[in-house]
């Protein structure tokens, strides 16, 4: 099971079709050895199917799966140096914790498992529960048994299928850190499937955002958040305000775009759409990048910033920040998060305000896309 | 290894399962085929020639249809009796705490763990000692007795899996105890009760051993068949057997179809 060639996971042209339903469109993906890689997407987007094809639990319709130099596409799961932490764990109910963890070693004919099992129990901090049955453990403990049962085999890749889905919020936070610690400690490639964008961003080095059987965008969490390239990514990871605008000048490093009366500037390097003067583009800006001033003080705004006028429709006090929904001529329901450093008491619903932000924080998207893709309403619908 | 052998190896379980299914179905096929036989002599065991005589005259054998109707009556009444008594016990077991649960459970369990011949013989001893007249009533008493446990098991499983908060919700929404029972508890328990009743009907209708001991000179349909195995088997018993089989399959299929349609509309 151990071999010294590089252990990158390489998927080439891999796809899956169930009858006439294309669950995964042909995709190419390289997951670097030792990385914590997340497949992020809403349910039914093909992320679990992709994971199961890596595990060998699902035969790909086309394409190949390689681990390092080895083509494992035709290998059954029990011959692949890959292990899975299943959704809701799939612990064997008739075996105790020790036997659950030792299961893989025993199948490979290893007789003396005690030392390794003890080490694993130590790693996941379950030393006292070795002889208990799975149903006697709490959800978080079961989750750790599932991780230990997979890791003891020293797989080249550990696959995690929504491993934290069954846990409550607080425990989930704790287990996120725990999994990250374990990954750093053992240095094995983790491929993590989740629908929780926060989970993916906190844990993973690299995230592939999937939608409708395709990878929408691949990158580090910061890259995906700061420079999304599709409306789906912009809306699915955090919140984005998207303004439909017309390109007035596309000659310089910064595009000049017009939305209603406002002239806004957009860095050409941060625009993923093809742009030409007179064409349409979507200008995006994250709510926390925006500053808000009372209309009376519009004069204090520095030159060179993008600005839009509007009226506060709602405000909700969250503690660390205040979240405003603002009606503007260019986009209704503009979201703005303002840190509660110095609160301006006049900013109540109905007040006329000016929004302004550093043009460098804007990003440009192709206007031909569905502007609501990836928003909560759209995903749950 | 040839491709065919590989295919066989991969589908070994399916092939073995289908063989078992064939083993289970074969006698029914024989019964059906031989309902069209025109046997020589008294026994219908060897194929002679095709004939629909038995189908056009199903009651042409003396006493057979009478025994069939008696069996149906007994099955109906013992189903009603066992379902009512069994449902009550099931509710008590699933919904209340009381003393002597263990003893009650054993009393329910034992009749299912007892060979029929033992129950049959001991019940006959009781009837003989009491000087009871063997016949319709002793059969009915015996059938209710052995169907009861099966009904309790089926209904209890259903009631146990039912969320007690549903009843609390009903009471919270102004339903009195009786209304709660009729509007909420009973409809939810209904599939379990129906399953128990169906089981009771089938067990009672097909029972031979206990009936044989406690029937006296009364003849139910299974007893008629038993007697005919000694005296000569009329083709008509195959007709009845085939008809029952067909009716059961059609009822179940219709039930599934209706269920599917309802699911689609819901």
């Amino acid at each position: 099971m151990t071999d010294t060639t590089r252990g990158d996971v390489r998927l080439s042209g891999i796809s899956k079709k169930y009858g006439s339903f294309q669950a995964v469109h042909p995709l190419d993906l390289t997951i670097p050895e030792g990385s914590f890689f997340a497949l992020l997407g809403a349910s039914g987007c093909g992320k679990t199917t992709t994971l199961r094809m890596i595990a060998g639990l699902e035969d790909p319709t086309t394409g190949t799966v390689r681990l390092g130099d080895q083509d494992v596409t035709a290998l059954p799961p029990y011959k692949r140096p890959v292990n899975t932490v299943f959704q809701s764990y799939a612990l064997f109910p008739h075996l105790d914790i020790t036997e659950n963890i030792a299961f893989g070693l025993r199948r490979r004919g290893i007789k003396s498992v005690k030392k390794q099992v003890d080490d694993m129990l130590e790693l996941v901090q379950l030393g006292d529960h070795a002889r208990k049955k799975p149903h006697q453990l709490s959800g978080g403990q079961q989750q750790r048994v599932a991780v230990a049962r997979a890791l003891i085999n020293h797989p080249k890749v550990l696959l995690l299928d929504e491993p934290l889905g069954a846990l409550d919020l607080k425990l989930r936070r704790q287990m996120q850190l725990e999994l990250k610690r374990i990954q750093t400690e053992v240095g094995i490639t983790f491929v993590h499937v989740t629908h929780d964008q926060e989970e993916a961003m906190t844990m993973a080095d690299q995230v592939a955002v999937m939608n409708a059987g395709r990878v929408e965008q691949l990158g580090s969490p910061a890259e995906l958040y700061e420079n999304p390239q599709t409306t789906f990514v912009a809306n699915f990871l955090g919140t984005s305000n998207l303004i439909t605008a017309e390109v007035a000048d596309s000659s310089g490093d910064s595009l000049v775009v017009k939305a209603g009366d406002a002239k806004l500037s957009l860095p050409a390097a941060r625009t993923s759409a093809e742009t030409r003067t007179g064409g349409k583009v979507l200008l995006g800006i994250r709510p926390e990048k925006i500053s808000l001033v009372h209309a009376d003080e519009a004069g204090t705004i520095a030159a060179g910033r993008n600005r839009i006028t509007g009226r506060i429709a709602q405000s909700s006090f969250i503690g660390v920040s205040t979240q405003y929904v603002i009606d503007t001529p260019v986009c209704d329901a503009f979201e703005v998060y303002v840190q509660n450093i110095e609160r301006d008491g006049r900013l109540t619903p109905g007040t006329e305000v000016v929004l302004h932000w550093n043009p460098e924080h804007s990003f440009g998207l192709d206007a031909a896309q569905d502007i609501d893709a990836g928003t909560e309403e759209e995903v749950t619908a | 290894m040839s491709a065919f052998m590989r295919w066989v190896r991969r589908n070994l379980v399916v092939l073995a399962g289908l063989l078992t299914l064939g083993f289970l179905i074969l006698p029914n096929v024989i019964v059906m085929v031989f309902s069209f036989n025109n046997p020589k002599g008294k026994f219908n065991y060897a194929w002679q020639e095709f004939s629909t005589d038995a189908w056009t005259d199903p009651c042409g054998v003396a006493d057979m249809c009478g025994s069939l109707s008696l069996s149906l009556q007994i099955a109906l009444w013992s189903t009603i009796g066992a379902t009512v008594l069994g449902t009550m016990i099931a509710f008590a077991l699933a919904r209340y705490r009381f003393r002597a649960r263990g003893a009650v459970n054993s009393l329910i369990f034992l009749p299912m763990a007892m060979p029929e011949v033992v129950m049959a013989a001991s019940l006959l001893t009781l009837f003989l000692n009491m000087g009871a007249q063997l016949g319709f009533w002793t059969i009915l008493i015996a059938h209710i007795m052995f169907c009861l446990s099966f009904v309790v098991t089926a209904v209890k499983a259903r009631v146990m899996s039912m969320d007690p908060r549903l009843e609390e919700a009903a009471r919270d929404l102004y339903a009195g105890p009786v209304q709660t029972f009729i509007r909420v508890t009973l409809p939810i328990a209904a599939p379990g009760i129906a399953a128990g009743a169906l089981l009771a009907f089938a067990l009672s209708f097909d029972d031979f051993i206990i009936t044989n001991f406690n029937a006296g000179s009364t003849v139910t349909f299974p007893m008629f068949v038993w007697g005919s195995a000694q005296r000569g088997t009329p083709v008509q018993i195959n007709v009845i057997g085939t008809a029952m089989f067909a009716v059961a399959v059609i009822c179940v299929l219709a039930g599934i179809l209706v269920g599917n349609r309802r699911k689609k509309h819901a």
Partner: protein
Amino acid sequence: MTTATDAPPLAPAPEQPPAKPRKPRGRFTPYWLLLPGLLWLVVFFALPMLYQASTSVQTGSLETGYKVTWHFQTYLDALGEYWPQFLRSVLYAGIATVLCLLLGYPLAYLIAFKAGRWRNLILILVIAPFFTSFLIRTLAWKTILADGGWVVSTLDTLRLLDVTSWLGLTEGDRVLATPLAVVCGLTYNFLPFMILPLYTSLERIDGRLHEAAGDLYARPFTAFRKVTFPLSLPGVVSGTLLTFIPASGDYVNAQLLGSTSEKMVGNVIQSQFLTVLDYPTAAALSFILMAAILLMVTFYIRRAGTEDLV
């Protein structure tokens, strides 16, 4: 299809008290609910057992009447005279149970995991034969196993009859009126009682456990041996009990498919009670059968340790 899946579990499931104890609203309600049914079972199930116990130690005759004389000799005499039938009952029922398990497991597995949209149809085919009287179906075996019929001649051609006759299961080129026919009838009659509990417990197994075993380097057969089969043990236990108990007391198959040398203890009880009218002997035999079965069942449930599973 609830009838199918709700096959009564014969091994008494560890009794769980209701999840939420109800307020004792109507403290006597449970007793009123229990009373009629339990009374029925006490009078027509428990009391008869006592009567039978008493009958078994009585002496006398039909003409002079019977009296309790604590004549335990009846038991010894009954055992002394009918031990071959007892032995045969246990043997035939045991073989039939093993055959049912071997035949029934693949079918239950097929229904639970492989049948897909055929599942309901196959379940119906397993249950539907119940609706044709089992006596009629048992008589059909007389046709199937008839001398010179295709089954017998096929077995003969394959030299299997030589094997069974060497095992003492058949004689010459006949199958009817041999132990093989009786065992075959018992297996056939009680097979659904094996399949349904097996199916119920297999169907409850989470399919991902099989996947997890494969993921952890278990080959398909090892995954079955280490995960699926152990988890189906409750079904195996109740299936074998539901098959063995009625098979050991059966006399229909021995009567219809066997000859006088295949008589089982059920046949003896039946004829002693209904033909010979020797009530004490019949009661003693019935009592021994009951005791033997209760002992075996208790021992078996202990050994199988169902309560230890899950």
